[in-house]
């Protein structure tokens, strides 16, 4: 009898405990995905993070889905105000605290992002008053709705069940390496494609690295476009091949080079030994050969 009672009690106790923990953790888990969000991240979790921080008045920047400096300081200030460890990381406890303290109207945010509206999301103000509509197509944020062709967008986490209710919100901005704009990268990709399509990946990265080495070098122009369009510098420019549409591999190669990869070994010249006729170029100290190009100093 006694044992039966204890067992029942135990079962009841376990039941309530799990029940309680379930209700406690249930909501925050729904709010964010499981990941620890850190600076530099891109995706839907970041949109939610920015929206929630803005709701509480910590974040005043644009809700764009890229965890930049503005978001970082906002998060740290939030952690400070709520007496947590200030590490600038949105881990489990931070996410829970955030989810508890703020509201996140996913559909509203997604609509605004899709429509390319300028909007804010401060708590305590009617949402309708925070949208600036009538952004004609001249405005910065392009029509995210019809995105998808060509421009690969970072796929945010979709492990949750949230994705069922339709498309998830897409970031409206991208990370760019310090000192370069998307257009610089595109222009370099054009040049790399014109000069080195058909080469192995390292051959493309090496060509991109040569462009960057030239920008750094005092004997060449100081801008990417200056180097690329310097008369007689690149054959692909002289014969118009630079205007072929580059494939993605060229862009990846350019990003690799910008992020520090240099398989050319600090080269500032390269040539194709099968076609190069100038004796001057043959006289340069050679570093190595990649694919059909010889790289030299």
């Amino acid at each position, binding site marked *: 009898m006694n044992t039966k009672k204890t067992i029942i009690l135990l079962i009841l106790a376990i039941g309530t405990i799990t029940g309680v923990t379930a209700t406690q953790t249930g909501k925050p888990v729904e709010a964010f995905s499981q*990941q*620890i*969000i*850190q*600076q*530099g*991240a891109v*995706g839907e979790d970041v949109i939610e993070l920015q929206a929630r921080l803005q709701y509480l008045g910590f974040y005043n920047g644009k809700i764009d889905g*890229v965890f*930049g*400096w*503005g978001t970082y300081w906002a998060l740290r200030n939030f952690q400070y105000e709520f007496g947590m460890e200030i590490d600038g990381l949105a881990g489990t406890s931070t996410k829970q605290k955030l989810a508890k303290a703020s509201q996140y109207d996913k559909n509203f945010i997604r609509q605004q992002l899709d429509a390319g509206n300028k909007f804010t999301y401060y708590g305590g103000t009617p949402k309708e008053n925070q949208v600036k509509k009538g952004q004609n197509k*001249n405005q*910065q*944020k*392009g*029509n995210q709705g019809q995105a998808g062709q060509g*421009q690969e967008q*970072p796929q945010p*986490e979709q492990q949750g069940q949230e994705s069922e209710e339709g498309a998830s919100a897409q970031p*409206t*901005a*991208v*990370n*760019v390496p*310090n*000192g*370069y*704009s*998307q*257009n610089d990268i*595109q*222009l370099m990709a054009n040049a790399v494609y014109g000069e080195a399509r058909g080469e192995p*990946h390292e051959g493309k990265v090496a060509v991109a690295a040569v462009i960057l080495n030239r920008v750094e070098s005092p004997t060449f122009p100081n801008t*990417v*476009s200056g180097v690329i*369009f*310097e008369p007689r510098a690149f054959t692909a*420019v*002289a*014969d*118009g091949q630079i*205007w072929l*549409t580059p494939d993605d591999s060229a862009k990846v190669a350019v990003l*690799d080079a910008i*992020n*520090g*990869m*240099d*398989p050319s*070994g*600090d080269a500032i010249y390269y040539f194709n030994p099968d076609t190069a006729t100038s004796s001057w170029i043959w006289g*340069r*100290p*050679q*570093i*190595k*050969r*990649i694919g059909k190009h010889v790289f030299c*100093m």
Partner: protein
Amino acid sequence: MVRWIVIAVLVIGVAGTGIWGYQEHQEKNAILVQAENTYQRSFHDLSYHMDLLHDKLGTTLAMNTRKQLSPQLAEIWRLTSEAQNDVSQLPLALMPFNKTEEFLSNIGDFTYRTAVRDLEKDPLSEKEVERLNDLYEKSGTIETELRKVQNLVLENNLRWMDVQTALATNDEKADNTIVDGFETVEKTVKGYSEGSFGPSQTGTSKENHPYQFINGEKIDEDEALKKAKELFQVDNDKEVTITESGEGANIAVYSAAYNNDNGHGYLDISQKGGHPLSLMVNREIKEQKISLNEGMEKAKQYLKDHGFENMEIFQSSQYENVGVFNFLYNLNNIKIYPDSIQIKVALDDGEILGFTSKDFFRNHQERQIPDPELSVEDAKEKVNPNVEIQDQHKAVIENDLGEEVLAYVFLGVLGDDTYKIFIDANTGVEAKVEKLKNAESKFEDSI
């Protein structure tokens, strides 16, 4: 007979004209391409210079010491003249573009006047700072507009030669996107013209120093192959090829490449000591499965596995579904900016896709860092009071002269931007001010 001769002469004549005509046509095309390239160059240069101008104006606002301010203003002055030069090269003679030029010369005038003044005795007045702020904002708007046009030009392969023709013939139907774009820029500037006005990672090593941390015995090709297979994580000998670098190389390396169904890899290891200098793996990257944070843990583990101690995460960025991480050497809580390692991680399965330690091996050395003469509090006072300091650390950076100096680094916010301010820990000089990059909006079929 005579008839045949006449026919032959005529045929030769016609053929000759044909050849001549063809040659002329070729030459004309070559000149067209060349002219087009000149226009493209000026245009892309213009937009780059505007980017730079905007950043420099921003850093000027965050600066405090006069010593830094004068060269900075001179630099802006130089940039405006470059940008003006770019504008004048563009075939916009038939278009009213004078407001933009005026705006540029406004900036130029303002910065020139302030740069040549002795700012030590006669610092910037409140009004001038306000003006600077104004110019900063406006240059930002122009920068965005220009970038939009630039994006269109690149996206749709627009030709300046066509623009010129379109302008000359006043043909409304032709694709005038460039013209429209520039008109928008012009309009943007118009509102401001009255009464108002650097790239790369700061502190890291700009110069290609000789490799000073490469030590050990020279390894032979077999050992290099073994190392390469380890780094690539492939077992098959046949898939890996090894080549030696030539005489012109700064450092003698073995380069290894592999090709298999999974992708393609390339790496450099130094012949002396067999240190891995760079590694690249190129393969298709699937949907993102792991977070940037998990990617960072993978990168950290990789560094540990390869014997790099005391490396600390410095920057992380996600590009589509890869994460790029920048690590710095940490010596007793001092971040050593020149000793950096970059790692690229695939966010589908966490594989290391790229690794480069060239900066590390170039700059790393045993360092004796004496205690700074200045305290943090002293250094903090040197920072522009308008900047709201959020975070700080000690660091060894490379100054403009290429010397390593100990500095206090303050991260602060001014307006919407974050700045990094480097104060020399011994002299108290504001060594550098850097504006940290914000994310860039996507331009998708805008305009």
